[in-house]
């Protein structure tokens, strides 16, 4: 009963809610540095832990090292293939394919996307087809490609370029169609010629979306390079990995997987870095809530 009484009293009691500075305040730079370190450490906990667990499990015989290998053996294999130059030559071939297909696909995508956005006839003619083909996973088209273009180098490049092309062309088209009317009206009112409107309004307005589509496409094109090399190649990182699996050299297979991941991460990172330089205005426009 007394408890009941106390509660009702405290409910009616008038009180102050206080907001004060934190007791220990750090400078923002200091705080950012601490956060950075913490982020790095936390990000490493899982991968490093898994590597250690893997090594321990293999050594103590909990898993079969013949099938699953172990980090130390994989590292030794990587070193061996680097020494012999095998890994480097495979890496070079994959990177050349990746870059060629990606650059060709991106440029074609930006060009066709822009043309479609500006020329109505072209848009009405191409958009339904591009839309229809957009939803098909590009990987499903690989057999058709082999049938159409045979086994040479060009069909591989076309295949990779096509995967990039779709994303970039589609994004460019939508971005160019969604430029606010107000911007077009300003262009008209202040007497911009069509060339000036293209350079000063359309291109800068859609650059941020093109950059994000290029980032997205960088991942997809990496996937497609490896897929093509798995199925239809006699060199390249995909072939290196797939072949290692076929002749059962698990160590090398893991070297392949890790190398592919590193290339993928570096490639996306590079595209992102270049992209953020091109579309700097978007940072101040959109990123204030970050």
């Amino acid at each position, binding site marked *: 009963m007394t408890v009941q009484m106390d509660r009702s009293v405290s409910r009616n009691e008038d009180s102050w809610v206080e907001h004060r500075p934190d007791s220990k305040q750090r400078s923002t730079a200091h705080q950012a540095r601490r956060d950075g370190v913490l982020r790095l450490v936390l990000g490493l906990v899982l991968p490093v832990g898994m590597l250690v667990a893997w090594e321990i499990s293999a050594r103590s015989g909990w898993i079969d090292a013949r099938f699953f290998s172990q980090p130390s053996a994989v590292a030794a294999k990587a070193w061996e293939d680097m020494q012999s130059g095998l890994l480097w030559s495979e890496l070079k071939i994959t990177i050349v394919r990746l870059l060629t297909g990606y650059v060709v696909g991106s440029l074609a995508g930006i060009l066709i996307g822009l043309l479609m956005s500006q020329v109505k006839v072209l848009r009405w003619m191409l958009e339904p087809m591009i839309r229809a083909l957009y939803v098909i996973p590009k990987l499903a088209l690989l057999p058709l490609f082999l049938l159409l273009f045979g086994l040479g180098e060009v069909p591989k490049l076309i295949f990779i370029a096509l995967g990039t092309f779709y994303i970039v062309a589609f994004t460019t088209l939508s971005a160019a169609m969604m430029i606010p009317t*107000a*911007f077009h*009206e*300003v262009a*008209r*009112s*202040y*007497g*911009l*010629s069509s060339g*000036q409107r293209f350079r*000063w*309004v359309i291109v*800068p*307005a859609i*650059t941020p979306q093109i950059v994000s589509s290029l980032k997205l496409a960088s991942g997809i094109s990496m996937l497609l390079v490896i897929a093509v090399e798995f199925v239809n190649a006699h060199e390249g990182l995909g072939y290196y990995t797939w072949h290692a699996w076929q002749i059962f050299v698990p160590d090398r297979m893991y070297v392949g997987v890790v190398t592919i991941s590193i290339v993928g991460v570096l490639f996306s990172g590079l595209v992102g870095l270049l992209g953020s330089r091109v579309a700097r*205005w*978007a*940072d*101040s*426009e*959109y990123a*204030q809530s970050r």
Partner: protein
Amino acid sequence: MTEAVRSGLPPTGDVAPIADKIRIEGLSYRYRRRGREDVVALDDVDLTVGRGEFLSVAGPSGCGKSTLLRVLAGLQKPTAGVVRINRERRGRPLVAPVFQEYSIFPWRSVEANVRLGLDAAGVDRSEARRRSQEWIERVGLAGFEKALPGNLSGGMKQRVALARAFVVEPEILLMDEPFAALDAQLRKVLQEELLAIVREHTYTVFFVTHNLDEAILLSDRIALMSARPGRMRRIVDVPFARPRSAELRKDPEFVRLEEELWADLKGDVETIEEVVR
């Protein structure tokens, strides 16, 4: 209705005639909608704006005042009637608009935004820089030349839009509620700035607003419109001499005029509410 419009026209004959700058005759604008009745935004509007005159168009929302401005700007073609604009000299832009939303380009710096019309006209770079710099300082943005609009406040963005219009030295300024999105204080500051600018340079200004106080303070004449369909209701001469200052708001005649105009508009606003109900 026509009577009222005529009586508002600048007097001719005994006083020296003011040359006409804009003549709007029998202007109609219909928004076509598929399967439904057209929306008549403007119905048989007649209006004349004199050279160097500051004319405000006021009225309830939906009275077609923005449509009228867009037709003048050449952004929309009238469905009926004609708009004639007198061009005094070539090589100077005829109209420059300031819109109610911030239509400045976020990818251009303040300076590059202000320079837009000069760049488009192919004005020499150093000349363009000098002229835009002048206006950037005039609207109080000195020091922000290299800033991107994303880092500016709403009021600063609208100043950029003003400078962009002024720098091309158009024969006619078209302003579509340029201060509507600003807070009350900033609105007053920019109104006074506009008043000062118009005092220095003689522009013909076509100013759309729903704010009567603003219209009286700034204009020589006010065209009141009624809504649905948008028609010219009445044209009122603002009797105050120039130069004016914000002090004018305290003048009893100012207050009386505002009340009179408001009484006139209020009827219209109420009618609309009934229609909505």
